[in-house]
């Protein structure tokens, strides 16, 4: 009796990586900054983090099973990644119900409405953050003071972010004079006001190095993004150092490192070709610089990434020269 063999087209083997592994790598890369935030912001951070992740998982399961009537795919871990990134983008004293609304927006509108994994045009965590920022401006702009607020369970001590001080006082010189600006060391470590995940530059960079080593991301977008911001702000700083902050200040404040390494590099919403990625990074950088220096908001990373996300399908059509392309 002849055995029944499998017949399929080639190739007949697969590489080892799969979608779960990539998502797991992102989760691992975000762990240093997560643990750092628990230390810096205490119970508030823990609460926001777990509420966000768990609600994202529950909402994805419910929407897929009951609304869309498909098999739930929460085991691909992408909901966990969205939940973590959303938590990173909000302050640690955000009320629980606001976090839950944020998760619903991130999964429901940021992802499911477009068709699920791989189909969304905009970064879901950023869509949710911007939604929350516009709907609950007071909650979203009260920043607990790191370390001090870690011991407090309710009524945490709040203070402004460095960029907030800059925008309010109108010039870098005036901002420095208030004495409220943290030192560069504190900015590197995370001892400054801001949302849970954006404060500690060094912990984020450790995660980013892991992602680069695992080849989940490449340097094209982060480098293009960061360098454009630094060059843009640097030009203005050189023109008038009293009014404009220096590029290093801009690098370490407002979620630029979080945005450049973890949000802008999201595979689904960024270009696939290296040339396209560089264009995307430069665009994000210029927009961030513009918003920070001349816009009404103190912080420009979320908006600039979302705006550039809208251009990605267009950028994708600028393909690289393919093998054997005859120059006309």
């Amino acid at each position, binding site marked *: 009796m002849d055995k029944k063999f499998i017949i399929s087209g080639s190739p007949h083997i697969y590489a080892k990586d799969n979608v779960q592994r990539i998502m797991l790598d992102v989760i691992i890369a975000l762990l240093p900054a997560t643990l750092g935030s628990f230390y810096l912001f205490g119970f508030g951070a823990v609460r926001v983090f777990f509420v966000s992740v768990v609600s994202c998982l529950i909402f994805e399961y419910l929407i897929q099973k009951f609304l869309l009537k498909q098999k739930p795919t929460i085991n691909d871990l992408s909901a966990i990644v969205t939940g973590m990134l959303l938590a990173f983008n909000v302050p640690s004293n955000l009320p629980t119900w606001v976090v839950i609304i944020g998760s619903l927006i991130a999964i429901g509108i940021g992802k499911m409405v477009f068709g699920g994994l791989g189909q969304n045009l905009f970064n879901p965590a950023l869509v949710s953050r911007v939604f929350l920022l516009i709907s609950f401006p007071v909650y979203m702009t009260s920043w607990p003071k790191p370390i001090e607020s870690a011991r407090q369970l309710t009524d945490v001590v709040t203070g402004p972010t460095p960029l907030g001080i800059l925008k309010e006082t109108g010039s870098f010189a005036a901002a420095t004079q208030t004495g409220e600006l943290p030192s560069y060391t504190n900015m590197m470590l995370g001892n400054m006001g801001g949302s849970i995940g954006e404060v500690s530059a060094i912990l984020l960079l450790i995660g980013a190095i892991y992602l680069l080593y695992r080849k989940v991301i490449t340097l094209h977008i982060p480098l293009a993004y960061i360098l454009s911001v630094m060059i843009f702000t640097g030009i203005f700083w050189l023109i008038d150092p009293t009014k404009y902050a220096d590029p290093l200040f801009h690098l370490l404040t407002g979620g630029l490192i979080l945005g450049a390494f973890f949000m802008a590099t999201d595979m689904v919403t960024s270009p696939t070709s290296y040339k396209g990625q560089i264009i995307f990074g430069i665009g994000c950088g210029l927009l961030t610089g513009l918003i920070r220096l001349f816009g009404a908001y103190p912080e420009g990373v979320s908006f600039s990434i979302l705006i550039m996300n809208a251009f990605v399908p267009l950028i994708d059509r600028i393909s690289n020269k393919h093998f*054997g392309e005859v120059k006309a």
Partner: protein
Amino acid sequence: MLKTFPRGGVHPDDCKISANSPINVAPLPNKVFVMLNQSAGAPAIPLVKKGDQVKTGQLIAKGEAFISANVHSPVTGIVDKIDQITDATGYKHQSIIINVESQEIWEDGIDTTTDLLTDVKATPQEIIEKIKNAGIVGLGGAAFPTHVKLTIPQGKVAEYLLINGAECEPYLTCDHRLMVEKSEEIMVGITIIMKALGVKKAFIGIENNKPDAIKQLTSLTQKYSNIEVVPLKKKYPQGAEKQLIKAITGREVPSGKLPIEVGCVVQNVATAKAIYDAVQKNKPLIERVVTITGPNLSNPSNFLTRIGVPINHLIELAGGLPEDTAKLISGGPMMGKALPNTEIPLTKGMGGILLLPEKLSKRIEPYPCIRCGRCAHACPMGLEPFYLEKLIIKERWEEAEKHWIMDCMECGSCQYTCPAKRPLLDYIRLGKNKVSAIIRSRKN
């Protein structure tokens, strides 16, 4: 710094488990099934009928069409019948079935000694004539008739001969063993091809996971000074002819054109050895080295076997079909063809038979595309498989044609590397099928 092609490529484990098994001459079965379409192009026309006595090496079918190859009897015996046999694709095609006799009688004029003949006396025209008569086809898998490839079209000039010893497919080791054991025959074969083409320089590209082959052939380049051995970085698909040309000479074959456009001709190393046999020994192409391999096979081997031998005979010699075999592949795991059963007869283009267990070969349920772009970065031809897949699902054939879908050489790097395990190459093949039908109807 090892040479390589700059764009794309993947790194599967090379699994060369049979690399150290020397070539074994396989004993003959009772019956052989010689397919009439042993090459690309039109099938050969049979010259024998039921009941005829044939000798080993006798011409039994003639390749009449422009792209076609002669077929010779691989055994001594009596023609049983000429009938339709299921071949590797599962479709039936004509073949000559011969009952094998124990006493082997070779056709007149064939030199069956193993003496090395290094003097090439034939003229270029005689060489191409002998290659045509011997029914030589590309033994790298494509089975394109060699005499057609070596006939340079008007207006084009051949500058370099490139010999493909890369063997980039995992598991396959037939070329490797041939380079180690029959190295000087290969060098003479290369000299013959150079004479036929009129080129002054030849390169042999070998991946660096075959250090013994590199060493062996390099030691002979002192004697054959216009042949250079070029070690190449191990990367799939280094053995693809356009990638080989790019890596060794730095030239890029223009889209839609053949290697002769950039002055290069590429031949497989086993074809060079077959040409040596044809020109120096008058021996037609009736046997080849085949690797029978697989992770659970008890005796992975490289057999020197005659054409037409059913695969199950060779699998038995290699230790028998493992219990958990789920897929039977002709060729390597990246580009090979899944076979429907074990009675398929061997043809000239088959270089390896791979037996894969279920856990390695079963397809995984695909995820939606996460637009990671790994397929585009892996494609050696610079295409964007994720976008082509989308176009094909939506049946936008003309747009797929504009995005160079016909340049795809179906190497499988995209589907191999996709983390969502999407069947990219299935869709691209479907697209190429539809687009070539559109192109054909446009010509009419």
